Protein backbone atom coordinates (compact mmCIF):
# COMPACT_ATOMS: atom_id res chain seq x y z
CA UNK A 1 0.00 0.00 0.00
CA UNK A 2 2.80 2.31 0.95
CA UNK A 3 4.54 1.48 -2.31
CA UNK A 4 1.49 2.54 -4.31
CA UNK A 5 1.36 5.81 -2.42
CA UNK A 6 4.99 6.52 -3.27
CA UNK A 7 4.35 5.83 -6.92
CA UNK A 8 1.32 8.12 -6.90
CA UNK A 9 3.36 10.87 -5.27
CA UNK A 10 6.09 10.48 -7.86
CA UNK A 11 3.52 10.61 -10.63
CA UNK A 12 2.01 13.77 -9.16
CA UNK A 13 5.45 15.32 -8.89
CA UNK A 14 6.14 14.44 -12.48
CA UNK A 15 2.83 15.90 -13.59
CA UNK A 16 3.33 19.16 -11.69
CA UNK A 17 6.84 19.50 -13.08
CA UNK A 18 5.32 19.03 -16.49
CA UNK A 19 2.81 21.82 -15.86
CA UNK A 20 5.44 24.23 -14.51
CA UNK A 21 7.92 23.99 -17.40
CA UNK A 22 6.44 22.56 -20.60
CA UNK A 23 8.33 19.37 -21.32
CA UNK A 24 9.91 19.09 -24.73
CA UNK A 25 7.28 17.55 -26.93
CA UNK A 26 7.54 15.25 -29.88
CA UNK A 27 6.95 16.80 -33.27
CA UNK A 28 5.79 14.72 -36.20
CA UNK A 29 6.92 14.98 -39.80
CA UNK A 30 5.12 12.78 -42.30
CA UNK A 31 6.51 11.60 -45.61
CA UNK A 32 3.81 11.57 -48.29
CA UNK A 33 4.28 11.31 -52.05
CA UNK A 34 7.96 12.23 -51.90
CA UNK A 35 7.44 15.27 -49.63
CA UNK A 36 8.29 15.98 -46.00
CA UNK A 37 5.16 17.40 -44.38
CA UNK A 38 5.38 19.94 -42.94
CA UNK A 39 8.51 21.00 -44.76
CA UNK A 40 9.54 23.25 -41.89
CA UNK A 41 9.01 22.56 -38.21
CA UNK A 42 9.86 25.04 -35.45
CA UNK A 43 10.61 23.31 -32.13
CA UNK A 44 11.99 24.26 -28.69
CA UNK A 45 15.45 23.04 -27.72
CA UNK A 46 15.32 19.48 -26.44
CA UNK A 47 12.41 18.50 -28.65
CA UNK A 48 12.18 15.18 -30.40
CA UNK A 49 11.23 15.10 -34.06
CA UNK A 50 9.78 11.87 -35.42
CA UNK A 51 9.52 11.16 -39.13
CA UNK A 52 7.14 8.51 -40.48
CA UNK A 53 7.31 7.20 -44.01
CA UNK A 54 3.84 6.76 -45.51
CA UNK A 55 5.16 6.11 -49.03
CA UNK A 56 5.65 2.74 -50.69
CA UNK A 57 9.13 3.97 -51.61
CA UNK A 58 11.85 3.94 -48.97
CA UNK A 59 13.26 7.28 -47.87
CA UNK A 60 16.24 8.39 -45.82
CA UNK A 61 16.27 11.43 -43.51
CA UNK A 62 19.75 12.76 -44.19
CA UNK A 63 21.17 15.73 -42.33
CA UNK A 64 22.78 18.31 -44.59
CA UNK A 65 26.14 18.93 -42.92
CA UNK A 66 25.87 16.37 -40.11
CA UNK A 67 23.75 18.61 -37.87
CA UNK A 68 22.05 15.51 -36.50
CA UNK A 69 22.33 11.75 -36.94
CA UNK A 70 20.85 10.66 -40.26
CA UNK A 71 18.30 7.85 -40.39
CA UNK A 72 18.76 4.41 -41.88
CA UNK A 73 16.55 3.58 -44.87
CA UNK A 74 12.92 3.94 -43.79
CA UNK A 75 10.63 1.38 -45.33
CA UNK A 76 6.86 1.92 -45.49
CA UNK A 77 5.48 2.87 -42.02
CA UNK A 78 8.96 3.00 -40.46
CA UNK A 79 9.66 5.78 -37.94
CA UNK A 80 12.82 7.65 -37.11
CA UNK A 81 13.38 10.07 -34.23
CA UNK A 82 16.09 12.60 -33.50
CA UNK A 83 16.49 14.88 -30.46
CA UNK A 84 17.42 18.50 -31.12
CA UNK A 85 19.19 20.01 -28.12
CA UNK A 86 20.90 23.05 -29.57
CA UNK A 87 19.18 26.03 -31.19
CA UNK A 88 19.81 26.43 -34.88
CA UNK A 89 18.49 25.62 -38.33
CA UNK A 90 18.90 22.02 -39.44
CA UNK A 91 18.41 21.33 -43.13
CA UNK A 92 17.86 17.77 -44.25
CA UNK A 93 16.98 15.84 -47.40
CA UNK A 94 16.35 12.32 -48.63
CA UNK A 95 19.62 10.85 -49.88
CA UNK A 96 17.87 8.69 -52.47
CA UNK A 97 15.44 11.44 -53.58
CA UNK A 98 17.31 14.70 -52.91
CA UNK A 99 14.47 16.76 -54.32
CA UNK A 100 12.83 16.01 -50.96
CA UNK A 101 14.04 18.64 -48.51
CA UNK A 102 12.98 19.88 -45.10
CA UNK A 103 14.14 22.07 -42.23
CA UNK A 104 13.99 21.82 -38.45
CA UNK A 105 14.32 25.20 -36.72
CA UNK A 106 15.26 24.86 -33.06
CA UNK A 107 14.53 27.96 -30.97
Amino acid at each position, binding site marked *: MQKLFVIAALLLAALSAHAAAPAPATYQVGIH*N*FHFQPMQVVVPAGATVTWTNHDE*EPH*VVTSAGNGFKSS*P*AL*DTDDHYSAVFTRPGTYAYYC*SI*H*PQMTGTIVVK
Partner: protein
Amino acid sequence: MQDDRDDIDPDNIRPDRRRFLECMAWAGAGTLWLMQGGVAHAGALLKGAMQPDATFSFVQISDSHIGFHKAPNPDPVASLRQSIAQVNAQPQRPDFVVHTGDLSHLSKPEQFDTVAELLKEAKTGHVFYIPGEHDVIGDDGKAFFARFGGGVDGNGWYSFDHHGVHFVALVNVRHLQGAGLGFLGADQLAWLRKDLAGLSASTPIVVFAHMPMWSLYPAWGWGTQDSAQALALLQRFSSVTVLNGHIHQIQQKIEGTITFHTARSTAYPQPAPGVGPAPGPLQNLPAGKLHDYIGVRDVRHVRGNGALAITEHTLA
Protein backbone atom coordinates in the same frame (compact mmCIF):
# COMPACT_ATOMS: atom_id res chain seq x y z
CA MET B 1 39.06 23.65 -81.71
CA GLN B 2 38.76 20.08 -82.88
CA ASP B 3 37.76 18.93 -79.46
CA ASP B 4 34.99 21.43 -78.81
CA ARG B 5 32.43 18.62 -78.59
CA ASP B 6 33.63 18.09 -75.04
CA ASP B 7 32.11 21.41 -74.10
CA ILE B 8 28.77 20.78 -75.72
CA ASP B 9 25.90 22.77 -74.32
CA PRO B 10 22.81 20.54 -74.18
CA ASP B 11 20.55 23.56 -74.71
CA ASN B 12 22.34 24.55 -77.89
CA ILE B 13 22.96 21.34 -79.72
CA ARG B 14 24.09 21.32 -83.32
CA PRO B 15 21.42 20.86 -85.99
CA ASP B 16 22.59 17.34 -86.91
CA ARG B 17 22.10 16.28 -83.31
CA ARG B 18 18.75 17.93 -83.19
CA ARG B 19 17.33 15.43 -85.65
CA PHE B 20 16.51 12.91 -83.05
CA LEU B 21 13.76 10.38 -82.90
CA GLU B 22 11.82 9.48 -79.85
CA CYS B 23 10.20 6.12 -79.73
CA MET B 24 8.14 4.82 -76.90
CA ALA B 25 6.86 1.37 -76.27
CA TRP B 26 4.76 1.20 -73.16
CA ALA B 27 3.85 -2.37 -72.60
CA GLY B 28 3.78 -5.78 -74.09
CA ALA B 29 6.50 -8.07 -75.31
CA GLY B 30 7.30 -8.64 -78.90
CA THR B 31 9.11 -5.55 -80.07
CA LEU B 32 12.37 -6.23 -81.79
CA TRP B 33 14.72 -3.29 -82.12
CA LEU B 34 17.32 -3.42 -84.85
CA MET B 35 19.69 -0.54 -84.71
CA GLN B 36 21.66 0.47 -87.74
CA GLY B 37 23.49 3.71 -88.23
CA GLY B 38 21.77 5.13 -85.17
CA VAL B 39 18.25 4.54 -86.47
CA ALA B 40 16.03 2.01 -84.80
CA HIS B 41 13.81 -0.19 -86.89
CA ALA B 42 10.97 -1.78 -85.01
CA GLY B 43 9.71 -5.11 -86.19
CA ALA B 44 7.64 -8.00 -85.02
CA LEU B 45 9.38 -10.33 -82.64
CA LEU B 46 9.54 -13.94 -83.66
CA LYS B 47 9.64 -15.41 -80.23
CA GLY B 48 12.85 -17.29 -79.66
CA ALA B 49 14.01 -16.75 -83.25
CA MET B 50 17.76 -16.85 -83.67
CA GLN B 51 19.75 -14.24 -85.45
CA PRO B 52 21.81 -16.66 -87.59
CA ASP B 53 24.75 -14.29 -87.82
CA ALA B 54 24.68 -13.10 -84.23
CA THR B 55 28.13 -13.38 -82.73
CA PHE B 56 26.93 -13.34 -79.18
CA SER B 57 24.09 -12.22 -76.97
CA PHE B 58 23.71 -10.94 -73.46
CA VAL B 59 20.78 -10.28 -71.16
CA GLN B 60 19.93 -7.19 -69.14
CA ILE B 61 18.08 -7.60 -65.84
CA SER B 62 17.17 -4.57 -63.78
CA ASP B 63 15.44 -3.25 -60.67
CA SER B 64 14.79 -6.47 -58.79
CA HIS B 65 14.12 -4.56 -55.52
CA ILE B 66 14.56 -7.60 -53.31
CA GLY B 67 13.04 -6.62 -49.97
CA PHE B 68 10.01 -4.88 -51.49
CA HIS B 69 6.89 -6.60 -50.15
CA LYS B 70 3.84 -4.59 -51.18
CA ALA B 71 1.38 -4.26 -54.04
CA PRO B 72 1.62 -4.93 -56.89
CA ASN B 73 4.32 -7.54 -56.20
CA PRO B 74 4.66 -8.89 -52.66
CA ASP B 75 7.15 -11.50 -53.90
CA PRO B 76 9.92 -9.99 -56.05
CA VAL B 77 12.09 -13.05 -55.27
CA ALA B 78 9.65 -15.21 -57.21
CA SER B 79 9.52 -12.80 -60.14
CA LEU B 80 13.33 -12.56 -60.29
CA ARG B 81 13.47 -16.35 -60.25
CA GLN B 82 10.99 -16.44 -63.15
CA SER B 83 13.07 -13.87 -65.02
CA ILE B 84 16.13 -16.08 -64.65
CA ALA B 85 14.13 -19.09 -65.83
CA GLN B 86 13.24 -17.08 -68.91
CA VAL B 87 16.90 -16.30 -69.51
CA ASN B 88 17.69 -20.00 -69.18
CA ALA B 89 14.99 -20.86 -71.69
CA GLN B 90 16.61 -18.80 -74.45
CA PRO B 91 17.75 -20.94 -77.38
CA GLN B 92 21.09 -19.14 -77.45
CA ARG B 93 22.95 -19.11 -74.15
CA PRO B 94 23.81 -15.50 -73.32
CA ASP B 95 27.53 -14.82 -72.88
CA PHE B 96 26.76 -12.76 -69.81
CA VAL B 97 24.00 -11.16 -67.78
CA VAL B 98 24.17 -7.56 -66.60
CA HIS B 99 22.07 -6.34 -63.68
CA THR B 100 21.64 -2.59 -64.06
CA GLY B 101 20.95 -1.76 -60.45
CA ASP B 102 18.45 -1.66 -57.61
CA LEU B 103 19.19 -5.27 -56.83
CA SER B 104 17.95 -4.52 -53.34
CA HIS B 105 15.20 -2.33 -51.98
CA LEU B 106 17.06 -1.16 -48.86
CA SER B 107 20.78 -2.07 -49.32
CA LYS B 108 20.49 -4.82 -46.70
CA PRO B 109 23.12 -7.59 -46.74
CA GLU B 110 20.49 -10.34 -46.86
CA GLN B 111 18.89 -8.66 -49.88
CA PHE B 112 22.24 -8.63 -51.70
CA ASP B 113 22.74 -12.28 -50.69
CA THR B 114 19.39 -13.26 -52.19
CA VAL B 115 20.18 -11.66 -55.55
CA ALA B 116 23.65 -13.21 -55.71
CA GLU B 117 22.24 -16.65 -54.84
CA LEU B 118 19.40 -16.43 -57.38
CA LEU B 119 21.68 -15.28 -60.18
CA LYS B 120 23.88 -18.32 -59.62
CA GLU B 121 21.02 -20.20 -61.29
CA ALA B 122 21.46 -18.20 -64.52
CA LYS B 123 22.98 -20.26 -67.31
CA THR B 124 25.53 -17.75 -68.47
CA GLY B 125 29.24 -17.14 -68.40
CA HIS B 126 29.31 -14.18 -66.07
CA VAL B 127 27.06 -11.74 -64.21
CA PHE B 128 28.01 -8.07 -64.16
CA TYR B 129 26.48 -5.68 -61.65
CA ILE B 130 26.15 -1.94 -61.30
CA PRO B 131 24.42 -0.25 -58.37
CA GLY B 132 21.13 1.62 -58.24
CA GLU B 133 20.40 4.29 -55.66
CA HIS B 134 18.64 1.67 -53.52
CA ASP B 135 21.92 -0.28 -53.31
CA VAL B 136 24.07 2.52 -51.86
CA ILE B 137 21.89 3.63 -48.94
CA GLY B 138 23.71 4.56 -45.76
CA ASP B 139 27.27 3.68 -46.81
CA ASP B 140 27.69 5.31 -50.23
CA GLY B 141 27.90 1.88 -51.82
CA LYS B 142 30.72 0.36 -49.73
CA ALA B 143 28.88 -2.90 -49.04
CA PHE B 144 27.71 -3.17 -52.65
CA PHE B 145 31.17 -2.65 -54.09
CA ALA B 146 32.74 -5.05 -51.59
CA ARG B 147 30.22 -7.66 -52.62
CA PHE B 148 29.78 -7.14 -56.37
CA GLY B 149 33.05 -5.58 -57.43
CA GLY B 150 34.65 -2.23 -56.87
CA GLY B 151 35.62 -1.58 -60.47
CA VAL B 152 38.24 1.09 -60.99
CA ASP B 153 39.83 2.13 -57.68
CA GLY B 154 36.87 0.80 -55.73
CA ASN B 155 34.58 3.44 -57.22
CA GLY B 156 32.41 0.92 -59.00
CA TRP B 157 32.82 1.91 -62.64
CA TYR B 158 34.64 -0.32 -65.13
CA SER B 159 34.89 -1.32 -68.77
CA PHE B 160 35.59 -4.51 -70.68
CA ASP B 161 35.81 -5.75 -74.26
CA HIS B 162 33.87 -8.66 -75.64
CA HIS B 163 34.01 -9.85 -79.27
CA GLY B 164 35.00 -6.43 -80.53
CA VAL B 165 32.39 -4.51 -78.54
CA HIS B 166 33.55 -2.12 -75.82
CA PHE B 167 31.33 -2.19 -72.74
CA VAL B 168 31.36 0.63 -70.19
CA ALA B 169 29.64 0.30 -66.80
CA LEU B 170 28.99 3.66 -65.17
CA VAL B 171 27.89 4.54 -61.64
CA ASN B 172 25.48 7.48 -61.56
CA VAL B 173 23.68 6.90 -58.26
CA ARG B 174 26.08 8.47 -55.78
CA HIS B 175 25.84 12.14 -54.77
CA LEU B 176 22.47 12.62 -56.47
CA GLN B 177 21.80 16.18 -57.57
CA GLY B 178 18.94 18.66 -57.62
CA ALA B 179 15.65 16.88 -58.06
CA GLY B 180 17.30 13.49 -57.57
CA LEU B 181 19.18 13.45 -60.83
CA GLY B 182 21.99 10.97 -61.31
CA PHE B 183 25.56 12.18 -61.18
CA LEU B 184 28.79 10.88 -62.66
CA GLY B 185 31.29 13.35 -61.25
CA ALA B 186 34.61 14.70 -62.49
CA ASP B 187 36.65 11.60 -61.51
CA GLN B 188 34.45 9.23 -63.46
CA LEU B 189 34.28 11.53 -66.49
CA ALA B 190 38.08 11.84 -66.49
CA TRP B 191 38.35 8.04 -66.36
CA LEU B 192 35.81 7.68 -69.20
CA ARG B 193 37.77 10.09 -71.37
CA LYS B 194 40.91 7.98 -70.88
CA ASP B 195 39.05 4.72 -71.29
CA LEU B 196 37.63 5.71 -74.69
CA ALA B 197 40.68 7.60 -75.94
CA GLY B 198 42.44 4.71 -77.66
CA LEU B 199 39.39 3.25 -79.40
CA SER B 200 38.66 3.65 -83.09
CA ALA B 201 35.41 5.41 -83.97
CA SER B 202 34.08 2.21 -85.53
CA THR B 203 34.22 0.29 -82.23
CA PRO B 204 30.66 -0.49 -81.13
CA ILE B 205 30.11 0.89 -77.62
CA VAL B 206 27.56 -0.31 -75.09
CA VAL B 207 27.11 1.73 -71.92
CA PHE B 208 25.41 0.45 -68.76
CA ALA B 209 24.10 2.86 -66.13
CA HIS B 210 21.29 2.70 -63.61
CA MET B 211 19.66 6.09 -64.11
CA PRO B 212 18.71 7.43 -67.54
CA MET B 213 21.55 9.23 -69.33
CA TRP B 214 19.22 11.80 -70.86
CA SER B 215 16.64 14.19 -69.39
CA LEU B 216 13.75 11.79 -69.47
CA TYR B 217 11.73 13.46 -66.70
CA PRO B 218 13.93 15.65 -64.51
CA ALA B 219 11.12 16.63 -62.13
CA TRP B 220 11.21 13.05 -60.86
CA GLY B 221 14.99 12.86 -61.05
CA TRP B 222 14.82 10.74 -64.22
CA GLY B 223 18.05 11.88 -65.79
CA THR B 224 21.72 12.43 -65.03
CA GLN B 225 22.91 15.93 -64.33
CA ASP B 226 26.28 15.67 -66.06
CA SER B 227 25.37 13.08 -68.71
CA ALA B 228 25.97 15.59 -71.54
CA GLN B 229 29.67 15.51 -70.74
CA ALA B 230 29.74 11.72 -71.05
CA LEU B 231 27.73 11.81 -74.29
CA ALA B 232 30.14 14.37 -75.73
CA LEU B 233 32.90 11.78 -75.26
CA LEU B 234 30.75 9.09 -76.91
CA GLN B 235 29.41 10.91 -79.93
CA ARG B 236 32.41 10.29 -82.18
CA PHE B 237 31.61 6.56 -82.21
CA SER B 238 29.46 5.20 -84.99
CA SER B 239 27.32 2.99 -82.76
CA VAL B 240 26.60 3.69 -79.10
CA THR B 241 23.90 1.88 -77.14
CA VAL B 242 23.04 3.07 -73.63
CA LEU B 243 21.11 0.62 -71.45
CA ASN B 244 19.71 1.69 -68.11
CA GLY B 245 17.05 0.83 -65.55
CA HIS B 246 15.56 2.95 -62.74
CA ILE B 247 12.20 3.89 -64.24
CA HIS B 248 10.74 0.36 -64.49
CA GLN B 249 9.34 0.77 -68.00
CA ILE B 250 10.58 0.81 -71.56
CA GLN B 251 11.43 4.07 -73.22
CA GLN B 252 13.75 4.73 -76.14
CA LYS B 253 15.41 7.75 -77.58
CA ILE B 254 17.83 8.19 -80.44
CA GLU B 255 20.18 11.10 -80.67
CA GLY B 256 22.65 10.99 -83.53
CA THR B 257 24.46 7.66 -83.28
CA ILE B 258 23.55 7.21 -79.61
CA THR B 259 20.53 5.09 -78.76
CA PHE B 260 19.08 5.00 -75.26
CA HIS B 261 16.96 2.19 -73.86
CA THR B 262 15.43 2.01 -70.41
CA ALA B 263 14.49 -1.45 -69.12
CA ARG B 264 11.60 -3.03 -67.34
CA SER B 265 11.94 -4.07 -63.73
CA THR B 266 11.78 -7.68 -62.63
CA ALA B 267 9.70 -6.53 -59.64
CA TYR B 268 7.06 -3.88 -60.42
CA PRO B 269 6.26 -1.13 -62.96
CA GLN B 270 6.30 2.60 -62.27
CA PRO B 271 3.96 5.22 -63.73
CA ALA B 272 4.62 6.94 -67.03
CA PRO B 273 6.59 10.18 -66.61
CA GLY B 274 4.52 12.78 -64.78
CA VAL B 275 1.45 10.58 -64.41
CA GLY B 276 0.41 10.88 -60.78
CA PRO B 277 1.94 12.82 -57.92
CA ALA B 278 5.24 10.95 -57.68
CA PRO B 279 7.17 7.96 -58.96
CA GLY B 280 6.79 4.69 -57.08
CA PRO B 281 5.18 1.30 -57.56
CA LEU B 282 2.23 1.27 -59.95
CA GLN B 283 -0.23 -0.42 -57.66
CA ASN B 284 -3.56 -0.53 -59.43
CA LEU B 285 -2.70 -3.07 -62.06
CA PRO B 286 -5.55 -5.16 -63.45
CA ALA B 287 -5.70 -8.47 -61.58
CA GLY B 288 -3.26 -11.03 -62.87
CA LYS B 289 -1.55 -8.54 -65.20
CA LEU B 290 1.66 -7.87 -63.27
CA HIS B 291 3.65 -10.16 -65.52
CA ASP B 292 2.74 -8.05 -68.55
CA TYR B 293 4.72 -5.21 -67.03
CA ILE B 294 7.92 -6.85 -65.79
CA GLY B 295 10.59 -8.86 -67.52
CA VAL B 296 14.07 -9.01 -68.98
CA ARG B 297 15.89 -7.81 -72.09
CA ASP B 298 17.92 -9.89 -74.51
CA VAL B 299 20.54 -8.18 -76.70
CA ARG B 300 22.17 -9.86 -79.70
CA HIS B 301 25.22 -8.46 -81.35
CA VAL B 302 25.70 -9.00 -85.05
CA ARG B 303 29.29 -8.68 -86.09
CA GLY B 304 30.11 -6.61 -89.13
CA ASN B 305 27.15 -4.30 -89.49
CA GLY B 306 27.39 -2.53 -86.16
CA ALA B 307 23.85 -3.46 -85.24
CA LEU B 308 22.46 -4.71 -81.98
CA ALA B 309 19.13 -6.50 -81.89
CA ILE B 310 17.24 -5.83 -78.70
CA THR B 311 14.37 -8.06 -77.70
CA GLU B 312 12.10 -7.40 -74.76
CA HIS B 313 10.55 -10.26 -72.85
CA THR B 314 7.79 -9.86 -70.31
CA LEU B 315 7.14 -12.61 -67.80
CA ALA B 316 3.62 -13.10 -69.15
